[in-house]
C-alpha cells in the first residue's frame, strides 16, 4: 500500500519538500551536536533535561491517546469510530517514532545506546520505557497496517489481529504510566514526587492526543474526499473536554497539597512556575498562558453550540493542545529541576540548534504521519466511492 503515498498533487509534494528541508536543517544541527557535545544546547548541570526530554514526555501522551478510539470501537462496538480508528493508530506510530528520536538526540553517547539492551537493568524505569515504547510501536504497526489492508480488500480483519488490538489497550496506559514513573520515583525532585503523576499524565494525554487528532481529521476532511464524520469528531471532542477538565483538576490538587501543607519543598517549584522564585520568573508568562488556554479550551469544548462549529472547535482543540504542551513539556520537565538540590535557581532557555533539532524531529513525525495518512485516506476514499 506504500505506493499510495507516492501519488500526490503539487501541494502534497510541496508539503513533503518543506518537511524534508526542516529535517535537513535539523540533521545538520545534530551533526554539529554530535561533534561538539550537548553543550550546544541550553541544558546545564542543574537543568540536565530540557526541550528534548520535554518533547519526548509530551509525545508519549499523544501516542497513548489512540486508546481513546480503540476502547469505544473494539470493546464497545462504537460504529462511529470505524473509519477513524486507523488515524489514531497512525498518529500513535508517528508520535512514538518522534519519542524515540528525541531520546536518541538527548543521549550523550548515542553509539552506546545498545548498552541498554546488552546490560538489561529491570530496576531502571528507563529500561522498561524502552521496552513498552518499542512494543507499542510494533503493536500499532501490526494492527494499523493489517486492519487497513483488510479494509482495502473489503474483507473483515484477520482473526489473529484481535489479540493485538486488545493488548494495545492496557499497553497504551502502560506506556504513559511507565513514562510517569521516570519522574514519580525520584526522591529529590518534589514537583515530580507525587502519586498523582501517572494519573495526571494520562488525563493530559487523553486531552492532548485526541485534540490533535481532531485537528488532523479536520485537515484530512479539507484536503481529501474522505469525511471522517461529524459524530466521530464530536465524540472525540467530548473525550477531550472531560479529560482536560480532569487534567486541570489534578493540577489544582497539586496546588492544594503544596500550599495548604505549606511545605517549602512542595511549594517552590509551583511558585517558580506561576509566580517566580528569588526573582527568577522566565516561565511565569508561559504557565499563565497555558492556564488561560486551558480555560478557553474547556469552555469551548463544554458548550455544545460552540463545540459544533468548526471554527470554534479548531480554536478549542488548538488551545488545549498548546496548553497541555506547555504544561507537560515546559512546565513539568523544566520546573522539576527548579530549584536545584541546593535551593538556588538556574534558568533554562533552549538554543537555536536545540530548537532546530526538535523541529526536525517534529518534521520527521509529520512526514511519517503524512505518508501513513495518505495511504489511509486513499483507502477510505475508495471505500466511500464503492
Amino acid at each position, binding site marked *: 500500500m506504500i505506493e499510495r503515498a507516492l501519488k500526490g498533487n503539487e501541494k502534497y509534494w510541496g508539503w513533503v519538500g518543506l518537511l524534508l528541508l526542516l529535517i535537513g536543517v535539523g540533521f545538520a544541527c545534530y551533526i554539529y551536536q554530535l561533534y561538539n557535545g*550537548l553543550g550546544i544546547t541550553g541544558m546545564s*548541570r542543574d537543568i540536565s533535561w530540557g526541550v528534548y526530554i520535554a518533547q519526548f514526555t509530551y509525545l508519549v501522551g499523544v501516542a497513548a491517546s489512540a486508546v481513546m478510539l480503540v476502547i469505544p470501537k473494539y470493546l464497545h462496538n462504537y460504529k462511529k469510530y470505524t473509519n477513524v480508528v486507523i488515524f489514531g493508530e497512525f498518529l500513535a506510530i508517528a508520535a512514538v517514532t518522534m519519542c524515540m528520536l528525541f531520546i536518541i538526540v538527548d*543521549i*550523550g553517547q548515542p553509539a552506546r545506546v545498545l548498552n*541498554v539492551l546488552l546490560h538489561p537493568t529491570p530496576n*531502571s524505569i528507563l529500561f522498561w520505557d524502552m521496552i513498552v515504547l518499542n512494543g507499542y510501536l510494533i503493536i500499532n504497526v501490526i494492527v494499523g497496517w493489517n486492519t487497513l489492508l483488510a479494509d482495502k480488500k473489503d474483507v473483515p480483519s484477520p482473526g489473529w489481529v484481535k489479540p493485538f488490538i486488545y493488548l494495545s489497550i492496557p499497553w497504551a496506559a502502560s506506556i504513559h504510566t511507565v513514562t510517569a514513573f*521516570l519522574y514519580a520515583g525520584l526522591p*529529590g525532585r518534589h514537583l515530580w514526587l507525587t502519586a498523582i503523576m501517572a494519573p495526571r499524565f494520562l488525563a493530559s494525554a487523553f486531552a492532548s492526543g485526541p485534540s490533535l487528532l481532531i485537528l488532523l481529521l479536520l485537515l484530512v476532511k479539507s484536503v481529501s474526499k474522505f469525511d471522517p464524520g461529524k459524530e466521530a469528531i464530536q465524540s472525540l471532542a467530548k473525550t477531550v473536554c472531560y479529560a482536560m477538565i480532569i487534567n486541570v483538576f489534578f493540577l489544582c490538587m497539586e496546588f492544594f497539597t503544596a500550599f495548604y501543607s505549606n511545605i517549602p*519543598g512542595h511549594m517552590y517549584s509551583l511558585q517558580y512556575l506561576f509566580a517566580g522564585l528569588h526573582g527568577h520568573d522566565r516561565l511565569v508568562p508561559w504557565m499563565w498562558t497555558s492556564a488561560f488556554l486551558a480555560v478557553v479550551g474547556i469552555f469551548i469544548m463544554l458548550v455544545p453550540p460552540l463545540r459544533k462549529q468548526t471554527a470554534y472547535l479548531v480554536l478549542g482543540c488548538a488551545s488545549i493542545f498548546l496548553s497541555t504542551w506547555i504544561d507537560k513539556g515546559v512546565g513539568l520537565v523544566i520546573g522539576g529541576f527548579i530549584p*536545584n538540590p541546593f535551593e538556588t535557581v538556574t534558568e533554562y532557555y533552549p538554543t537555536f540548534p536545540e530548537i532546530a533539532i526538535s523541529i526536525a524531529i517534529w518534521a520527521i513525525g509529520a512526514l511519517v504521519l503524512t505518508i501513513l495518512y495518505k495511504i489511509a485516506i486513499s483507502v477510505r476514499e475508495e471505500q466511500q466511492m464503492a
Partner: protein
Amino acid sequence: MKASRREFLKLAGVSALFGLGANAAFELLTPGALEASSEVAHGAAHGEAAEGVQAATRWAMVIDVRKCILQEDCQDCVLACNSTHNIPTVGNPKEEIKWIWKDTFEHLFPDQHSQYVDEGLEGKAFPVMCNHCQYPPCVRVCPTKATFKRPDGIVMMDMHRCIGCRFCMAACPYGARSFNWRDPRKYFEGKEAMLNPEQPTRTKGVVEKCTFCPERLAKGLEPACVEACKKRKSDCLIFGNLNDPESEVRKILRKRTSIRRKPELGTQPSVFFLV
C-alpha cells in the same frame, strides 16, 4: 501431514519470537546471571549492597565542618581532587564539573537552615561530595549499570558504559553529579602539563562524580582530598570503614554530633558532617 507454506511461516515466526524473548526473559528472572562479571554486578542489579550480608567494609567520610571553616580560603581538597583526576576548570558555572567543592550550610542543608544559624557557620563554605548512599537513587535508575554500588559501599562510575542519558543526575537528590557537555580535553589545551598521566580524563557525553578514589584505596592510600587535608594538618576530612568499630570515623562519630544531607529521603548517606 500436509503443512502449507503459510503454516510453516507461522511456526517459524513464533519460534523466532521465543528465541528472541528467551534472553530477555532469562535476564529478567535471574538478573545479572548472564553477565560475565562477578557478584559486584549482581549486587549492582539490586541497586544496593546484598541484604543481610554484612559487607566487610563500608567506606565513609566525616567532614569536621567547624575545623574546616576556620581554614579560610583553603581549597586544598578541591585542588587535590581536580589535579589527581584531571577535572577541567570549565569557567561557565552552567557546565562546571565538580567532584568535591565547597558550599555553605544554607545550600547544603536548606531544610536545617534558619535565620538563627550561629555567626561562625553562617555563610562559611565547607567541602561536599557524592554521599555514596547506601540506597542510592542514581544506581536504581541507571539503565546500563554504568553507575553501580560496590560491596564496600562506594557508588562507582563505569565511564566506558555510560550512555549519557543523565537519568542519574535527575535522580540524585544532592546535585553531586556533573555531565561532560563538551569534550573536557578542550579545557586543557595549552595546559597539557597539568594532566596527571596516571589517570584518564573523561570524554564528552558521560556523567562523572566523586568515587572515593578507588585506585588509591586499592594501594592502601586514602582519597586524594583526605591526604591533602592531612598534609596541611587541618584534619578536617576523616575517612574510614564504618563497619570497623575502632576506625577513626566511628571513634569521632561516637564523640561528636553529626548530620547528613536530606536524611528524610532514606538514602542513608555515607558522608557525615560534624557541626
